[in-house]
């Protein structure tokens, strides 16, 4: 059973931001690997390891493949040649570049996805509502997260309805286009109409709030967490500068 951690959503995000920027700035393979391992441990401890692995892999495998093609296969470096045939040149430094870039992306992806899995969506929305951000942001986030499964379901029933009418069975390019149309038009029509019908009632309920707004839901926070957030943000900005400053001189 996955457990959610009892931290303010912003604390989790600030920590992740600090880790990602500093790991990117450090750009050392062992730092990246350590961060990835730490993420995997946290995911394992909270019971999200499996989903984290599946979600990350679906993004990272194409990325790694693409980077290998671009940097590994047609390297422009002169030294460290491993193999060459026609336009293809595989070099040690080319492979290294691909690996370093891949790990850099991996840190962003894994740390980001871990945040998504750890943070309770409703708590995140409440935290945004209670922050000075415009009141529209919280609504838009919440509404989208609600609509995603809802519209995916709708899309499925539309497919069924069209099958009942024996519509959308064509082949080839025109058949494909017809199928897209049969699926997309009722979905778009129904959801735009729905959005339109709702908007009047939403404004009747005082949205978006003109002045200050409140939330019934409380988001647990503490002075310690606030301090941690500030420190993390400071590290996210100053950490990379501190790490990279020595290189500027050697340019």
């Amino acid at each position, binding site marked *: 059973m996955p457990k959610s951690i009892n931290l303010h959503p912003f604390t989790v995000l600030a920590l992740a931001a600090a880790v990602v920027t500093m790991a990117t700035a450090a750009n050392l393979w062992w730092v990246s690997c350590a961060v990835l391992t730490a993420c995997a441990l946290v995911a394992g401890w909270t019971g999200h390891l499996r989903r984290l692995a599946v979600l990350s892999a679906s993004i990272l495998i194409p990325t790694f493949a693409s980077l290998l093609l671009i940097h590994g296969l047609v390297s422009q470096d002169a030294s460290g040649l491993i193999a060459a045939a026609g336009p293809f040149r595989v070099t040690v430094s080319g492979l290294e570049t691909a690996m370093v870039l891949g790990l850099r992306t991996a840190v962003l992806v894994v740390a980001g996805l871990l945040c998504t899995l750890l943070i309770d969506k409703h708590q995140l929305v409440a935290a945004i509502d209670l922050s000075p951000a415009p009141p529209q942001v919280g609504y838009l986030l919440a509404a989208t997260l609600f609509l995603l499964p809802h519209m995916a379901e709708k899309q499925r029933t539309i497919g069924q309805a069209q099958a009942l009418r024996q519509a959308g069975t064509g082949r080839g390019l025109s058949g494909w286009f017809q199928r897209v149309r049969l699926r997309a038009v009722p979905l778009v029509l129904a959801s735009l109409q729905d959005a339109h019908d709702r908007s009047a*009632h939403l404004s009747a309920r005082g949205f978006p709030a003109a002045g200050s707004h409140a939330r019934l839901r409380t988001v647990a926070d503490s002075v310690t967490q606030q301090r941690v957030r500030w420190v993390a943000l400071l590290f996210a900005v100053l950490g990379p500068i501190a790490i990279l400053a020595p290189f500027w001189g050697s340019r």
Partner: protein
Amino acid sequence: MIENQENSRTENSVLLDLNIKRFRYSGAELDSLQRIEMNLAPGSLTVVVGESGSGKSTLGEVLAGILPRQGADQCLGTMNLAGQRIEYTDLESQRINVAGWAKHVGLLPQEAGHYLSRIRERVAEELVFSLENEGVPREEMRQRIAGLSKQLGLDHLLERDPAKLSGGQERLVALAALAISEPSVMVLDEPLAGLDSWATDAVTEMISRLRADGTAMVVLSRTAKPWADNTDALGKLVDGQLSKISAEEHVQQPVSEPTQWRATPGEAEILLDFSGVQLGYPGAERPVVDGLDLQVRAGECVGLAGANGSGKTTVLKTAAGLLRPTAGTLAVSASTGMLLQNSSDQLFERTVLREVSFGLPKKGKQRLRVPEVLSQLGLEAFAETHPYELPASARRLVALATVLVREPQVLLLDEPTEALDSAGLACLQEVIDSVLNRGGSVLLSTHDQDFMHRTAHRVHQMLGTPESTTSGA
């Protein structure tokens, strides 16, 4: 012209006074409302009856300040509300403050779910959405929820997920969310439509409690029957014109004659044959339907009855070929056509004519039937209209037309009476008769007991335990 006789209760305090000369939607060729006069006193109940498309919902939205939209719709008239006088002709330059207006007049839309924000995790949070937007302190919100919940008997719903409520519960929650801002007038559009008897009682009870606290109620409905006893004013809306009627006049409308029972042709060919059929969805713990034995013969109309979640829709979808039995056999020996419960999912063309003709060969026999089917359903006048611009009843009939034009031998209808007005019901009845007369058969599910008795030759009772929490969809 509606006037309140019961001004005695709170002498000369009229909450709202509306006088509309005419209202026309942007781009429309006809007025949707004409010569409407209403005034409402605290605690009064005003009922406005009208058929689908008569302008009821438009009137509701005008009362709630949602219409007219600035720079689009045309409106002539005046409104007196909360000591302020609105000249509609002035609205060219000024915008209505919909939120401020809603503190005086709240509107519960026909689709009660549209009133809910859909973005809160618990009902309690949904209830205070409007208070949150006003910035009411948390402690006060808690008190308001507790008070309202006690007054209206909502305690059992407060911790539920608003997305997983049944239709009746959804309406109760929407009513409460409306009531929490304590508007002096509440406009309810079809507050009882589609509710079973338990939910009807709960909603009516809530309405009388709110009235007792002095809220003026305006009910927009197809029928005045449930309200006849304690209405202060009753009006009838026909083509956007409001006229006063007496309660007796309305209730004494002719009830449609029961269709004559045909003797079921016992030896007729069996068109649908379920034997020992088990139906389920992959991954579900237990099958939705188990051991179903049901034969439907030519010329026969069979009704499926049962609680929500007992598998009526699943059986119909299986007969239509959308699902396969997980056990047992199903023999279908004729062409089938199915009307879905939410039939808007099937519509995607720009005009009714194109919609109904979709996918039919250019010179085929079925193509020639299109005008015939449209006139059978009373849709000829709408041939060039966009299906989404039709009233709900006519839109349902368009979906029925797309099924009928292919002349199915077996007609499968999922809750066919939902959204239909009385003219639509008559068309549906006629369609069913004509299918049976030409030797076809009809299998249908409905909550409407009257319709079931009038139409079906026999009723098949679906067994199976209803899923109490997940049937909200």
